[in-house]
Structure formats: C-alpha cells, structure tokens
C-alpha cells in the first residue's frame, strides 16, 4: 500500500498515513485531487478506480470515506478486507465508533493503524493481538500519568513541609 486517507463527505481530511516518502506539497496535491475524484463517484459504482499509475480502493462507511492506494501487483479484494478489518478494530476499541471518535481521538486511531499495518503491509492478522497491544499501551500511558501526577503532588507537599519547617525555625 502506498497511502491511506480518511475523509468526510465534505472533503475534510480526518486521517492520512503515507507509506512512501513524498514532499508536503505533493501530499497536499494528491490529497486534493483524490478527494475530488472519489467524492465524484456515484454510490452504485465499483470500489476500484485507476488514478495516475495507482489503483485506488475506497469504501464508504457512514459519512467517512476510507481510501487506499495500492500498486499494480496488489490484490484489490484483499485491500477491501484490510479496510474492513481496520474499521472493525476501531469499532471494537471505541465501542460503536463514529466520526467524532476519530476526530477527538485521532492519535489512538493512528496507534491502532500502526499496530495493524507496517510499511503498507499487514503485520498482525489477529484482531485480539492488535487490541491487546493497544490496551497494554493504554495501561502504560495511564500508569505514567498516574505516576507523574503523584510526583507533582509530592513535590508540592514537600515544598509545604519545607516552608513549614523554615517558618518553625524562624520562629
């Protein structure tokens, strides 16, 4: 896979993951053109189209378009499955995912995508493992937050104790 884009029906980009090195300008240009092309497609048309020298596989879920660009030798049907698997993962994680979830928790969406795909290829075919990895990452995040919260609290306590001791000494 060369890149994956998620955008809404109004053409606003919600998620972009690039597996090929391109300059920012090129990325923007490609995004603009592709969004226009895909949004112009009628609902009954097939999910594949030829664009430049790439094959584009897209699928619409509610108000979001999931769009992947694959190379000539890739299998289009399995790409549809990849898109579907990703949506299932998001669904499982967020619990009945909707566009808002992705807007507000976009970094989680990226994490899940990175656990599932690496360098454009599927790296973990088991749903459970992906979700487990994300859960572990979440736990780690919470623990560190907790610890840092306690540390900042502890620092304040200690400064108060010191201040108290100082005042005692003064007095």
């Amino acid at each position, binding site marked *: 896979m060369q890149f994956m884009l998620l955008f809404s029906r109004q053409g606003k980009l919600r998620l972009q993951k690039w597996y090929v090195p391109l300059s920012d300008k090129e990325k923007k240009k490609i995004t603009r053109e592709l969004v226009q092309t895909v949004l112009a497609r009628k609902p*009954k*048309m*097939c999910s*594949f189209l030829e664009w430049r020298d790439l094959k584009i596989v897209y699928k619409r879920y509610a108000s979001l378009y999931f769009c992947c660009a694959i190379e000539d030798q890739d*299998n289009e049907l399995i790409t*549809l*499955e990849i898109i579907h698997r990703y949506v299932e993962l998001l669904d499982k994680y967020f619990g009945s995912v909707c566009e808002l979830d992705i807007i507000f928790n976009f970094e989680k969406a990226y994490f899940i995508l990175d656990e599932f795909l690496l360098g454009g*290829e599927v790296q973990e*075919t088991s749903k*459970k493992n992906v979700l487990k990895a994300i859960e572990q990452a979440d736990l780690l995040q919470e623990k560190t937050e907790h610890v840092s919260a306690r540390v900042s609290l502890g620092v304040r306590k200690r400064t108060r104790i010191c201040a108290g001791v100082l005042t005692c000494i003064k007095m």
Partner: protein
Amino acid sequence: MVPQLVHILRTLVTTGYSTEHSISGVSDPFLQVQILRLLRILGRNHEESSETMNDLLAQVATNTDTSRNAGNAVLFETVLTIMDIRSAAGLRVLAVNILGRFLLNSDRNIRYVALTSLLRLVQSDHSAVQRHRPTVVECLREPDGSLSRRALELSLALVNSSNVRAMTQELQGFLESCPPDLQADCASGILLAAERFAPTKRWHIDTTLRVLMTAGTHVRDDAVANLTQLIGGAQELHAYSVRRLYSALAEDISQQPLVQVAAWCIGEYGDLLLEGSCEETEPLQVEEEEVLALLERVLQSHMSLPATRGYALTALMKLSTRLRGDNNRIRQVVSVYGSCLDVELQQRAVEYNTLFRKYDHMRAAILEKIPLVERGGSQADEEAKESKETAQLSEAAPVPTEPQASKLLDLLDLLDGPSGDAQHPPPLDPTPGGALIHLLNLPCAPPPPAPIPNLKVFEREGLQLNLSFVRPPGTRTLLLITVTATNTSGGDVTHFICQAAVPKSFQLQLQAPSGDTVPAQGGLPTTQLLRILNPKKAPLRLKLRLTYNHFGQSVQEIFEVNNLPVETWQ
C-alpha cells in the same frame, strides 16, 4: 523453501481455524494471500517450484468458500498466482473458469477484477477467454464508467475473424451510448479491428462510415486517409460508396472527417453519383445542382475546418470536368474564393481560376481520376502523372497540390502497376519528379559481346541517347545496358545527368558516367553503364530521367523506354 510454504498453506486451508484470525469462515485470509504472493514470485520461471505448487493451488481454488469477499479475495490471488507461474494446462483452464464465474457475480467489484485479469490472460490463453465473450459483451452495457472501460478493452482484444461482424455490431451500439472520453478509444478500436478482420470491402466501408457518422470528431487523424485509400482501391464499390457518402453528407455536415471523405469522393466519382441507379442502394435521383449546392454549403459553413474547405473546393473543381452541364456556377465560386482570407483556400482558388482561363485545354487531363496510392507513400505532383506536358507545366502557373497532403505518388509505383508488389516504396526527394535511383550492390562482371540490337530512345535538339544491351552468358538474370549520349548540335551539353528507374522486382545499379559534358558537333559521346538484375524474369520496363544544360537552358526530361527487345529480359 517452497515445500515449507506449501505445507503451511495446506494446514491453514484444511485444518487451521481460529476465530480471531479468520474472516467469515476463511481462515486467516491475509496470511493466505501473502503466502500465495510469495509462491507466485518464487514460482515465476521456475519449473520445479511450480510443479510443487500445482496440487496445492488446485486444492485452494476448489475448497475456498466464495460467498463472502474474503473467500473471493483468496481465490483471486490464487488465480493470479496460477497465471504467473509455469502451471499445468488444466490449472490454467481452471483459473479462466474461476474468472468466468466471477464475471457472473452480481458484485461489481468482483466483475471489475475479473475483467482486469482476463485482459491480462487474453494474450496467452486466447481460446479459453473467447468462451466468456458473451458475458464480457454484457458488461459493456454497465452504467459504471470503470467497468465499461475494462469491458471495452477486453472486447476489442477478443475480436477475431470469426466473430468480427457480431462484435462490431455490439461495439457500434456501445459507441452510440458511451461517455465521450471512451468514444475516442472505442472508435479507433473498431476501425483497427475492421482493418484487420474485414470480411469484405463493402462491409469495411460500411463500418468505417458508421463509425464516422456516430463519433466523427473523435477518430484518429489517419482515418480519413485510410478510408479514401480503401474506397479508391475498391473499384466496384465506387458508385455505392459515393451514394452512401452523399446521403450521409446531405443529412449532417458537422462531422469533419466524414465531410472530408465525402467531399473527396463526390469530387472523384461525381459522374457515378449522377448516373442513376445502383443495385446496392436504393435508387437515388440526384441533380447536378443539388450536388453543387451541397458542396457550396460545406464551403460556407462555419463548422468546416480549413482543411475541409480545401477538400470541398478541389471537389468542386473536379466536378467541372465530370458534370455534363455548364461550369458557370463552379467558375463563380472559384473566383469568389480567389479573394478569401484563408491563404490556402485563396491559393487554390487562384490556381483553379487560372486553370479555367488560360489552361482550359489541360483541365480535363489534370483533373482525371487519381490512380491508387500506395499506403505510406510520399508527396508528389498530380500533374506529373496525368499530363504529358510536364516541362510546360513546371514553367506555368504553380501546380495545385493534391488535398491528401500525406500521400506521394512514387514514380516507381507507376512501373509496378501490373505486378502489384506490396513492398513500401523507398522515400523520394521532394524535388519535382523525385530521384529515381535505386541502388544495390552487385558484383562487377565484364560485359561480353551481345547480339541484341541497339535502341535509340531519345532525341532532342541534336542530343541523342542510344541504348545498347548485353546479356552475359554466365548469369541468366543479368542485363547490362550502355547509355550513349551524342551531340550533333552546335552547343555543348553540360551537367548531363542520366538516371534510371525499374520496377520493384528488378535491381538496378548505375555506374559513373564517362563525363558530364557531351561536346558539340559530334564530339566524343558520353557513356554510362547500367546493370540490371532480373531474378523473376519479369518483362523489363525502364524509365529514364535526364537533366542537362543546353543552349543556356536547363532541360529535364522524363520518359519511359518503349519497344525494349524481348531478349533483354527473357
């Protein structure tokens, strides 16, 4: 490594089943697809690995559940793998059948994928794909753009001599209803297929006509040239084509290629149009005035391109000799366009005007029917072919150019008329008359004495040209000609160059002349040796071209040598 992969895939397909890895009954399709891809890369051009994989691929192909997309994805990957490795014939047939089944699937995506793969297969397994032709043609009628484009490409690839009529019918139907961006491809595809597989000339003309009428603006540029050449070659169909073109033109003058071809045809065969009945179309009573009116309409219409106008003007001119009535109307039109803003039209009109006024006696000869042009020839003057007074014309008004700016009439082709060779003529210089040298390396041999009589071929103002022939006894196909130029006049002939041309089946070699000046008063004659090889023992025809300066004038003469003795080529 291949056996291990095969083993893994086999266990996966037959026994391995875990809910978290599988999708709707197909165990771990991602892994399966990746293994199949790896097998494809390993098996390409490698007999051993391909053989190891054969059974497994057959097993996967038959056991995979195809009710859901995951199964279809695995199946598709299997088909791709079978296509790429050195698989057994039975396996390839299985692959084509799977693709055929995909074609019948109601899911558009699957059909798209099937069409794409069949396109790749059609080169190698043509007959297997032919069986699915009806389904492919069905897909042409899809409203979806990408699907119909794939179907179009595949249909064009499937056309062959047995199904060309039916397929062209379908494709023409498609052409009428398809979106504009596909029209160009469809039109050129139909024309190409018609060229390759046309069963009869009449069918070919009909098909091309229909394509031009439906999608005229999208055809390729050389469609006009091809069609004119085709019509020119089909002598028996002249009347038929001119009638069809006339009726088509009368209906609609906006499709430029059609108008161009129609104008050319009416100009060439206008007399056939007015004759009356033709058994292949309905009787069409056409008056001279109608024809002229139509051509004038084309000339004046703002939809006509400048090239089209040129065609129409030349056609009008040709009609002046073909029609029996008087030419006043034509003369009027021609003189009006003498002051047209478009330079090309103005030039033509002025030349034609001059033709009416000063050279009326030559008009009939100049505007005779064009002989058939070889495909891929180069540009030359029409006058040099039709009129005998070449020298006079080259001094007179500038020569009107043939509207088909891309074709040349090769001088060599004239000689080749009866034998009808299909080779391409060698490229000619753009100078009037063109160079006639056709050189090939031949081994030298001394000329032995010969009993063939000499031939005097040319005489003008004291300059004489004689040919003497020698047939060396050793080689039955070789002929040596010595060209001798003698000058009995008062002035020297300088810069004398003699060139020769022979039909294509002959090989000619000119050796250097003894000099390029023929001194006056019967001085030393100039000789030049020609070697002609005649492997096919065909009748010899020889055309000579002379250029020289005599009495301060530069003279150019082109003539064919008649009365060649039979012994020269038998």
